[in-house]
């Protein structure tokens, strides 16, 4: 009896130790919306770990998008490359150029990546590719979107959400009350958000913000960007329907919730948050157009750093494909307000039920037909900052002209891009 139970215990021990031998990988993720999301993400990680015994994922919280980049890059350089990182979607280009992340072909094994990417919305694909290869798998994506207070609209006698820039200005003027008692429109102008919205306005103004096929060119000193800068600036200084100076995204949403702003532009990633907290009748609409409807993609994708073992790569892929499955990606979309980048997520019954109950969740998806990739260049953050500094100056200084601002932004961005341009396009031997 004793002997038998001892053997049994030994066998159990062996089984347990083979279970312990599961490949352990780290998954670094930021919490770009509310902290609630980081807890939900830990829950997903636990669910994955419980679902199988080959891979054990450790969820590592990494702060903001920018801190995530610093942490994962520093860890990789120090010799501890993370197997899976949820990274701002437009950083993949730069990380791939610097040879820090691996193409997904190296992870995917037998999976047909081409067919898999076909399941994602066309608008999210360009940011996932670099030099013809897939470097990231989209997970949580967004577009800028117009949120508006329907009660204010009724009060001001406005029937519909503005569709063109002219209607937008007109509506903002009707909605605003003097001396900042109520603002017609507010948009975040803090770093990151700022550049994204300048790009959105530039695209709606008919232009292209950067060269999506060559990461060494940016189009700041061009008519379409100049017009975008002027249009945003005029809300504050000419029409006086937007506060002057730099306003961050939290001020914008707070003003909206408290009825101090009638229209706001925010990411669709904030949608669940707005739905939970707006105590009035609100709706969401497309970003208004001047020449065409067009918005950039935002959000984050999964990447894998160079230098991991084959076993880790395999483990990383099993987690990535689980997390980006139609079912999980749809769950995440419903939880956060980000749209699901995988089109097939919208065919599932839970999702159909959800969008029927919350039609505002479909607006960003409909807008995808007009969406394009997010700025991704050599040294993206510094290039983006060149135009953000000027936009912030325009909002603060009524004397500054959009021409000077655009020219300065171009000059500074070109300086940042110069080393890459000289190594590549200008190196003619």
């Amino acid at each position, binding site marked *: 009896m004793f002997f038998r139970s001892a053997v049994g215990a030994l066998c159990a021990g062996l089984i347990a130790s083979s279970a312990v031998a599961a490949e352990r990988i780290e998954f670094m993720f930021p919490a770009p919306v509310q902290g609630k999301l980081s807890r939900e993400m830990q829950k997903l990680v636990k669910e994955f770990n419980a679902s199988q015994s080959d891979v054990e994922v450790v969820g590592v919280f990494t*702060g903001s*998008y920018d801190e995530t980049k610093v942490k994962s890059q520093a860890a990789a350089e120090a010799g501890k490359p993370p197997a899976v990182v949820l990274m701002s979607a437009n950083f993949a280009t730069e990380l791939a150029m610097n040879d820090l992340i691996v193409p997904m072909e190296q992870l995917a094994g037998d999976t047909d990546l081409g067919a898999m990417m076909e399941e994602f919305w066309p608008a999210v694909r360009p940011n996932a590719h670099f030099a013809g290869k897939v470097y990231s798998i989209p997970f949580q994506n967004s577009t800028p979107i117009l949120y508006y207070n329907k009660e204010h609209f009724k009060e001001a006698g406005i029937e519909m959400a503005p569709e063109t820039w002219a209607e937008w200005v007109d509506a903002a003027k009707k909605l605003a009350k003097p001396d900042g008692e109520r603002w017609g429109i507010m948009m975040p102008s803090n770093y990151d958000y700022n550049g994204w919205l300048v790009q959105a306005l530039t695209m709606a103004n008919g232009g292209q913000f950067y060269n999506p096929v060559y990461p060494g060119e940016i189009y700041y000193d061009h008519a379409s960007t100049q017009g975008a800068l002027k249009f945003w600036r005029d809300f504050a200084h000419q029409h006086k329907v937007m506060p002057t100076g730099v306003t961050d*995204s939290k001020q914008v949403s707070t003003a909206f919730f*408290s009825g101090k702003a009638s229209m706001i532009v925010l990411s669709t990633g904030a949608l669940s948050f707005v739905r939970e907290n707006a105590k009035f009748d609100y709706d969401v609409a497309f970003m208004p157009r001047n020449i065409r409807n067009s918005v950039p993609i935002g959000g984050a994708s999964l990447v894998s750093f160079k230098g991991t073992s084959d076993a880790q790569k395999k483990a990383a892929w099993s987690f990535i494909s689980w997390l980006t499955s139609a079912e999980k990606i749809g769950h995440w979309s419903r939880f956060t307000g980000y749209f699901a980048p995988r089109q097939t997520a919208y065919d599932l019954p839970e999702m159909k039920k959800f969008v029927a109950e919350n039609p505002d969740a479909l607006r960003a998806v409909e807008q995808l037909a007009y969406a394009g990739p997010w700025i991704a260049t050599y040294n993206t953050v510094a290039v983006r900052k060149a135009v953000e500094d000027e936009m912030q100056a325009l909002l603060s200084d009524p004397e500054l002209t959009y021409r000077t601002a655009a020219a300065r932004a171009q000059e500074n961005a070109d300086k940042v891009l110069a080393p890459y341009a000289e190594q590549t396009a200008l190196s003619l031997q």
Partner: protein
Amino acid sequence: MRPELKQWAAPGALLAATMCAVVFLWSTPFLWMLVASFRPDSFGGLGMASLFPDFVPTLKSYRYAIEDGDWPLWFLNSAILVTGTLAVQLVTISLAGYAFARISFPGKEALFYLFLLQLMLAPPVLIVPNLTTLVHLGLYDTLIGVMAPYWGSAFGTFLMRQTFRTIPKDFEEAAIIDGATWWQVLRHVLLPLSLPGLTAFSIVSVVYHWNEFLWPLMVINDPDKMVLTVGLVSFAQGAEGASDWGLIAAGTLFIMAPLFIAFTAFQRQFVNSFMSSGVK
């Protein structure tokens, strides 16, 4: 006599009033946080910026903060971190301070200034080299790894050197005549006389490491080793949405509570340690 007294009283009252105003101004952020943590509508609203409570206070934010965070674990990790850092620092800065203050050797001044150069380096610059060292030492993702780079403190060494130099040499010479070795001199003569300096350094060190965010975020991956600051951010950060100010305020009050209580309890000693230096 009386008119004279009144003449003195008026500027005194004015001074007191000014001081009160300054105190109030300085404590505004703290007062706002206290008010915000009890506010029912904590996502903002018109009254959000108000410093004066205009509502029925609620403990909702505290309840969420307690439910959302693994506070006992985070407190424990932060406590291990600050005590572990300080304990080693006190030994190294005393020894190094003693060497620079009392022992003469060639190149001492040059070495000392080279040492002080450490103060000029911005910590973020050192993230990658320090991480690389930690990986080689096998200390990546450990609390010791978070502490290690701070074990040699240029500021502490400088402070202890200055403190030791204010102590008259006669004290040591008397001890040496009685047959004391250098470490006995340090242990029984110099250190007891340097307590204010050591206390001042301890306060600075504890407060700095208690509140530090970036470096622990870089080193620690294991959720079981998360410290308070990173923990707070993990459940209270918002970039694309808005922040729950009530929750953030409640969490921040939790984090500062131990330091706040310690400071209130030992206020006199703390102030004295900064006021006096060495032996009068």
